[in-house]
């Protein structure tokens, strides 16, 4: 397997009146060709901003200040806006969280998809219209010819998310980034969308990055999982490793605090005390140290680096010297 | 159970808004200009060696000089003294009109928005009617039809009581100008407040207040209105500027403050007639009016940003 995307030392700051606040602090991530990577973290951990920075869609006042993101031999962070725009449509597809507001309400959905094709692929209008119907069929929309003529408000949330996926696939991307695409959807619809993306990934031979806060959801979807906490990757491992041998104290606590259908009713859940730090108020050293049951004074000295876990899959890496020491012992 | 703790740093919504406002240079400039003009309006006429009414036909239409900083007008009156008194007129009218209009608008808009139903439909129907009548026409009609009877009534009262207050024609002017301008200004405030109240009244904290059993009066005054005020404060700031422009416009057209009481509007009107020969008579009041209006708008913009910081609900 070759690496499709290599992010090294990515750092993102929010410009604020009080001075810059760091939201992403030197993240390293690799996405292999044909792989699906799950990025898991709580709100404010920087998981969405990391991916938005790759395609130049960071909101105002938020900027990638250091690092590189090599994609197809080029550094995405150093590209001109024009070049990024071409990458965005054709090589990297994006699906957003809220299907209700991500479609233009005054353009028929077939035309919205066709517009991207005309612009990105230089298709003629009739070609694009045919391709748009094919894409709608690809994402499992029944009666795609009729649906292409529909307005966004005539579609349900699940159907709109399918349209968003069709638009994300319009340029035949090598990488599809899905930013919490099912958070706004009901559980039965969520299951449909997860199935669809899993199926499309295989059929179109894409890489998928799925951003989520839901560990259970990602279990059935990802080949590898990166757990983010307060702008750093704390654990990065193949999916089975994460669930069988969660190593970082944060990953373990996160898994323990998940209520499950098989769990014991009415019992107290193991929970992590406190809340994740706000951007700009990150503690020194390991950001999880203030909430960590294993924390020692040395944890506040330096931000720990990702290192392989001895005795595990070589791809299993964790940013916690304490658990690595224990694994050796 | 471990307790969650917090620090003791002082805080407050208004303190934060004030801090943000202070960082906005244009808004601070606007605030300074407004304070300056208010100060001049209050104490200026006492400091000036000239009375705004005293005529001196020897020094008619003089350009600015050391003795008359902004020159004199066609009756030899000091322009600066008249401008300073005009500032009083402008601020009195602006504040009087805005306070009246806001009071009517907020009461009707808040009650209409909060309770809905037939009263809401009636208020909205009434604002629509008021807003559909041309403003200028309304003011002219009110002034033209009421000025005469009120003056006659005041004259009669004076003869009856000999109370000098009934001889004060400026008072009639102000009451009529306040009244007619408030009448055309309140619907905008009513609509704004109603829209705000409609969006606030279904927020969970309002429903929570209902679930706590609190009365409608408490819910409206403590939960709904304080949260509907932000846009109103901005609108009031801009509205003060607009009221000044309106007052000037009406005085310019002769339906506002009657000469010889100075108003920037009637000064502009007088200056316009002779501006080719004595441009200072037009430029001075027009410039002051423009600067003050712009100052109010800068302040309004600044307040808008200070009260609705981006990225914070």
């Amino acid at each position: 397997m070759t690496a499709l995307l290599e992010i090294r030392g990515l750092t993102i700051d929010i410009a604020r009146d009080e001075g810059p606040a760091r939201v992403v602090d030197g993240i390293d991530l690799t996405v292999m060709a044909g792989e699906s990577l799950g990025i898991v973290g709580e709100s404010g951990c920087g998981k969405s901003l990391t991916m938005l920075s790759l395609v130049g869609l960071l909101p105002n006042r938020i900027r990638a200040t250091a690092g590189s993101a090599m994609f197809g031999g080029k550094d995405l962070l150093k590209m001109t806006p024009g070049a990024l725009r071409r990458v965005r449509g054709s090589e990297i597809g994006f699906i957003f969280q809220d299907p209700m507001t991500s479609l233009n309400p005054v353009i028929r959905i077939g035309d919205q998809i066709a517009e991207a094709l005309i612009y990105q692929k230089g298709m003629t209008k009739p070609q694009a219209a045919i391709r748009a119907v094919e894409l709608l069929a690809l994402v499992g929309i029944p009666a795609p010819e009729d649906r292409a003529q529909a307005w966004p408000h005539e579609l349900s949330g699940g159907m709109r998310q399918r349209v968003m996926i069709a638009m994300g696939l319009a340029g035949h991307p090598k990488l599809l980034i899905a930013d919490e695409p099912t958070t706004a959807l009901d559980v039965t619809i969520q299951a449909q969308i997860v199935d669809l993306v899993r199926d499309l990934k295989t059929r179109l031979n894409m890489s998928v990055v799925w951003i989520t806060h839901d560990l259970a959801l990602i279990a059935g979807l990802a080949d590898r999982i990166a757990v983010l906490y307060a702008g750093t990757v704390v654990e990065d491992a193949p999916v089975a490793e994460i669930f069988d041998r969660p190593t970082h104290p944060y990953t373990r606590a996160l898994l323990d605090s998940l209520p499950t259908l098989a769990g014991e009713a009415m019992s107290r859940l193991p929970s992590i005390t406190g809340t994740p730090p706000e951007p700009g108020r990150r503690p020194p050293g390991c950001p999880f140290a203030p909430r960590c049951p294993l924390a020692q004074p040395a944890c506040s000295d330096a931000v720990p680096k990702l290192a392989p876990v001895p005795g595990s899959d070589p791809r299993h890496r964790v940013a916690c010297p304490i658990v690595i020491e224990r694994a050796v012992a | 159970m471990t307790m969650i703790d917090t620090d003791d740093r002082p805080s407050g919504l208004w303190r934060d808004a004030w801090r943000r406002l202070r960082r906005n240079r244009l808004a601070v400039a606007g605030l300074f200009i407004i304070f300056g003009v208010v100060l001049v309006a209050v104490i200026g006429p006492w400091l000036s060696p000239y009375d705004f009414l005293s005529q001196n036909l020897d020094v008619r239409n003089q350009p600015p000089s050391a003795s008359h900083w902004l020159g004199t007008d066609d009756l030899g009156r000091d322009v600066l003294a008249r401008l300073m008194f005009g500032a009083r007129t402008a601020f009195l009218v602006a504040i009087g009109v805005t306070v009246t209009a806001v009071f009517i608008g907020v009461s009707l808009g808040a009650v209409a928005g909060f309770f809905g139903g037939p009263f809401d439909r009636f208020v909205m129907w009434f604002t629509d009617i008021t807003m559909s009548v041309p403003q200028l026409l309304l003011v002219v009609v009110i002034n033209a039809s009421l000025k005469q009877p009120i003056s006659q009534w005041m004259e009669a009262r004076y003869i009856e009581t000999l109370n000098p207050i009934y001889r004060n024609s400026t008072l009639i002017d102000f009451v009529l100008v306040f009244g007619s301008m408030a009448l055309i200004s309140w619907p905008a405030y009513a609509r704004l407040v109603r829209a705000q109240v409609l969006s606030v009244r279904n927020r969970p904290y309002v429903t929570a207040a209902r679930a706590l059993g609190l009365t409608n009066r408490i819910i409206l005054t403590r939960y709904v209105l304080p949260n509907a005020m932000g846009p109103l404060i901005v609108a009031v700031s801009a509205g003060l500027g607009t009221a000044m422009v309106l007052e000037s416009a009406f005085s310019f057209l002769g339906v506002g403050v009657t000469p010889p009481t100075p108003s920037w509007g009637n000064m502009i009107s007088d200056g316009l007639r002779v501006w080719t020969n004595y441009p200072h008579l037009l430029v001075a009041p027009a410039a002051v009016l423009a600067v003050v209006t712009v100052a109010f708008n800068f302040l309004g913009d600044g307040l808008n940003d200070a009260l609705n910081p981006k990225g914070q609900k």
Partner: protein
Amino acid sequence: MTALLEIRGLSKHFGLTLGAFGDRAATVRALDDFSVDIIEGETLSLVGESGCGKSTTGFCILNLHQPSGGSVKYKGQEIAGLDEAAMRPFRRDLQIVFQDPYSTLNPRMTIGEALSEPILFHGLASRAELPARVTDLLADVGMTPRFANRYPHELSGGQRQRVAIARALACQPRFIVCDEAISALDVSVQAQILNLLLDLREKYGLTYLFIAHDLAVVRHISNRVGVMYLGRLTELAPAGDLFARPLHPYTRALLSAVPKPDPRAPVNRQRLTGEVPSPLNPPAGCRFHTRCPIARDRCRAEVPEWRAVTPGHHIACHAVSRADKTNWEGQS
């Protein structure tokens, strides 16, 4: 076991006007014929997808929405449809916690003011006792008294939700509706708030109506679970029973759609096709028949009756009975 609340035939229909000139009237049947007893001290959960009427149920029970029909008896007294003044004495006992932590507190009031308001209004403490009472309430939800001087915007989502719970407790209620109270929180914070709700239930003998869409959470906290679809209750059973032996085809589909935190879980779960129809024009007969894998002709014509399959386990379904349950499993 006594019923704290007896709910019979509760329904809520919203009138809508459609069309460019508001000339077409339509009715959204948000809740239809909802009947259940809520037992003192239990946690009854309502689950279902958006538009199923679970939140409407909570609002109608508390009279925050005027029900269109039916009866709600609190300790034997009818409260459905009471006006605000008549309802006020009951408000103390019946409280609610909302979903969105960012709009659940009045942004213009400090935490202390927000907690004091109901105490003073209902005369539950004197002004002198007030600070101590606020401190107690904050302690109940695991917060130090220093939070009393904070404004909501300075608090995290989880902290705000704690304050919202403290505010509900301020009235010393018997019954709290938790309307998606933890849905908007981060995973690590959800567990904290769930634990807090469990602790408070024990400490004050509270009864909860827990409204949620996350079945794993519901499984964890409930004594009994009701499943709703398009404004109707479709299945009601003790939590263990419902999750171990779901009978209604909708409940089964819902359970199978819940993602399992296990990368080796079989992928081919039983999928519901299609989406929830509009409550503006709900399907005739059983409202689930358009998506039901075992629908029969009868399901399209006749509203299924509410019946007990085993004691305490109720469903509304023509197609499932204990006898043909195995049969149905063979088809899936």
